[in-house]
């Protein structure tokens, strides 16, 4: 809240993903590709295999263009974007890890210089010197991963750091090693996939056959390491974090399932082309592999980001920049006291700092559709109970008056017509909608918080009574403030739910 808020119509999550997925993909390839180049060069030189050397030189040109330009700059781009969308967390990371970043920078400088020298030195340098530079490139690129891995894993599992604040406690945190080996496997796999793309353009023949075979081997080894480490990584995440994710967020768990299927697909294609029909590897097949690789890695990264919710730094800073250490002062003086850049519209300012970094009004994770047809009192109650909602939300730590201000702001932008009119529904279907909007945010049918059983055997009067005293049913549960038609419909839907639950 020490910063202005960048009010973009696109969701922050989407914005971040666009740059980060691309960068992460290229940067892992940049490490694995370096290893692939120098190892293959060594083998080719030993065997006096000049077509292979030519292939590698061509590959290295691609490599330089992709990694040095797009890879390095999207890396800088991540710095730019996190400073814009999560300035508080970035600030915390920089203050704690500035010497980590600075160290990483020294590796980055060597890495870039080595890549250029390697590329420009094919013809002029002695083989020995050239390969030495290739190794320098790989080692330093991997060392950068070593450092960045420490900081990324810190964000998910800060471990002892939360108690000690010690640099090394945070750096060598519980998921550090699993993630490091996993990412190294990814590097090797991506190097294979990428080189296959270049190799696929060769004419079917003896050279293509052995190159594809050899390169597919890289893919398989990388994939195997990765698959094993994924399990290790999963086990290294503290049980509490996993349990919470399993309970409230089925999506990240699904993404893990997808990633297993994607990995299986990659493995199958690698075997088909690597072992059975290397000469037939077409551009299209190689590109498909690449896409699968991207999707697989995307699924993994998304999973990692999702289970960290609602935090940016677990147990320390929430996704909206709300800091746990300041809980007491938020509760006492509210958020606004901490908002440095004000616009004159308190509701808007509060909405931005409390909700906007994860939600938009009517785009990504839109709030308009989930509040249209409800009322101000209900919205305010939902805000105060944000921590109870499905989806692992950060708690609202501001004052009740501030929750009202956000509710004002939102309700002015909603569809004010009755639910029946907005959705053209009636009877039980209208009731279902009312449930979705007014109850389903906390009581997800079929999940841990399902209350269907409580409705079993209740008469319409009982259910009406229950709605009358809704606010007393649980700490944080909103009073029922909907209109009469909706109420009737909701009661019939609840009755139906109850019948279903009894069976």
């Amino acid at each position, binding site marked *: 809240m*020490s*910063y*202005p*808020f*960048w*009010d*973009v119509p696109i969701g922050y999550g989407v914005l971040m993903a666009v740059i980060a997925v691309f960068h992460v993909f290229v940067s892992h390839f940049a490490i694995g590709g370096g290893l692939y180049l120098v190892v293959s060069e060594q083998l080719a030189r030993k065997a006096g295999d000049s077509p292979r050397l030519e292939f590698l030189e061509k590959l290295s040109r691609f490599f330089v*263009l992709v990694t040095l*330009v797009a890879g*390095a*700059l*999207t890396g*800088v*781009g991540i*710095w*730019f974007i996190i*400073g*814009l969308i999560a*300035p508080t967390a*970035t*600030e915390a990371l*920089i*203050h*704690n890890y*500035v*010497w980590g970043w*600075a*160290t990483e*920078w*020294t*590796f*980055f*400088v*060597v890495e*870039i*210089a*080595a890549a*250029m*020298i390697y590329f420009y*030195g094919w013809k*002029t*340098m*002695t083989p020995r*010197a050239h390969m030495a*530079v290739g190794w*320098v490139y790989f080692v*330093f690129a991997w060392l950068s991963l070593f450092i960045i891995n420490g900081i990324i894993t810190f964000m998910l599992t800060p471990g002892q750091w*939360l*108690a*000690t*604040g010690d*640099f*090394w406690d945070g750096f060598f945190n519980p998921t550090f090693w699993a993630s490091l080996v996993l990412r190294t496997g990814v590097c090797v796999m991506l190097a294979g996939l990428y080189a296959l793309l270049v190799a696929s353009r060769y004419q079917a023949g003896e050279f293509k056959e052995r190159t594809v075979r050899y390169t597919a081997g890289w893919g398989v080894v990388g994939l195997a390491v990765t698959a094993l480490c994924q399990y290790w990584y999963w086990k290294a995440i503290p049980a509490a974090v996993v349990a919470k994710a399993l309970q409230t967020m089925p999506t990240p768990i699904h993404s893990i399932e997808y990633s297993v299927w994607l990995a299986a697909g990659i493995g199958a294609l690698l075997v088909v082309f690597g072992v059975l029909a290397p000469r037939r590897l077409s551009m299209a097949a190689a590109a498909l592999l690449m896409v699968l690789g991207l999707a697989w890695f995307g699924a993994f990264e998304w999973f990692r980001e999702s289970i960290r919710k609602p935090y940016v730094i677990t147990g*320390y800073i929430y996704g909206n920049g709300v800091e*746990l*250490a300041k809980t007491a002062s938020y509760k006492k003086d509210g958020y606004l006291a901490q908002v440095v*850049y004000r*616009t*004159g519209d308190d509701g808007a300012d509060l909405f*931005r700092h409390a909700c906007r970094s994860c939600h938009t009004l009517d785009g990504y994770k839109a709030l308009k559709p989930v509040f249209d047809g409800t009322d101000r009192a209900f919205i305010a109650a939902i805000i105060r109970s944000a921590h109870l909602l499905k989806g692992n939300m950060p708690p609202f730590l501001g004052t009740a008056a501030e929750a009202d201000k956000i509710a004002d702001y939102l309700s002015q932008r909603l569809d004010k017509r009755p639910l029946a009119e907005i959705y053209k529904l009636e009877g039980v279907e209208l009731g279902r909608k009312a449930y979705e909007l007014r109850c389903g945010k906390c009581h997800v049918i079929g999940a841990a918080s399902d209350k269907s059983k409580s409705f079993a055997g209740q008469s319409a009067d009982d259910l009406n009574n229950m709605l009358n005293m809704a606010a007393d049913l649980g700490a944080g549960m909103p009073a029922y403030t909907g209109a009469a038609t909706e109420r009737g419909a909701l009661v019939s839907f609840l009755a139906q739910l109850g019948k279903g639950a009894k069976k």
Partner: protein
Amino acid sequence: MNLPDYEFLSAPLWLVTVLHLLTFTLHLVAMNFLLGGVFITLWSSARKRWDGPTAAGFTRIFPAATAATVTLGVAPLLFLQLVFHRQMYSAAIVSGWFWLLVIAAVIVAYYALYRASFEGQRTDRASKAALLLALLGLLYVSLVYSSVFSMAEQPALIRNLYAKDQSGWVWNPAVGDYGLRWLHMVLGAVTVGGFFVGLLGRNDMEVFATGKTFLVGGMVAAALTGMVYLLSLEQHLAALMHTPAIWALTAAVALSLVSLHFFFKKNFWLSGVTLFLSVAGMVFVRHTVRLLRLAGEFDPASWRVAPQWSPFAMFLVCFVVMLIVLAWMLRMFFGAKRNAA
């Protein structure tokens, strides 16, 4: 539980400042070579002062210069963020889209420079068009930096601009405040670019003459704009007079004249060193101006210092290793090139 506090500096302020200003000076030198070099190459080919091979020779180095500019830019940005993130992020957020487009502009410029360098002398027009595109990209970046960093020195301006518009499409309207500053930086780049052109073209009369023209012309123009900019600072200028920066400024001006002298004598070593020191002096002046403009709003000395010496030692060791490995690789590379030639 008492959570750790992150509002601290993990090394004494002076150390961070030295690293910041040193790496920034290095970044400026690389950037100046790039921006000035591209500009001079375009100009000289357009005026037909250079033949194809000469222009192609310079064009071949620009991708490496871009790599150097970017990598050397990362470090000062890191140290700047460490101390001034409140001001810097705030200004960047207000101009969010323009700020983010810097990345796109650099990528475009970078690819254009690669394109031009692979083109060689084959198609002169395509190569020129690519250089022009790169130049525009680089100028965009420089303009955004001047506008955002100058906004960052005026928290009141950030507050006003943000109160009116939160979309990130706000371009700093105080052009009078940073226009000259930007021009001064660009002219400085042309000056240093002229030095490098003269250095690399020392054996070719025509090229050396071009370098000399831009070195001298750029220096005069940069001095004039710098002067006017300083005068426009009004009350800050008076304050500046009472800081060591005024001595640094005097020394920087004197050193740049000394540099000219050695350049004419084709003593590039001394000319280069004095020019570098002159740039470093200017960087120090710029830093002081920032502190003066922020005075009353923010004082970096107010940071609590809680050193992390072991991570710092890691950095220091790696920094030395970096220098050694760089020197070793460059020696191998240029040694091999010399042997090949």
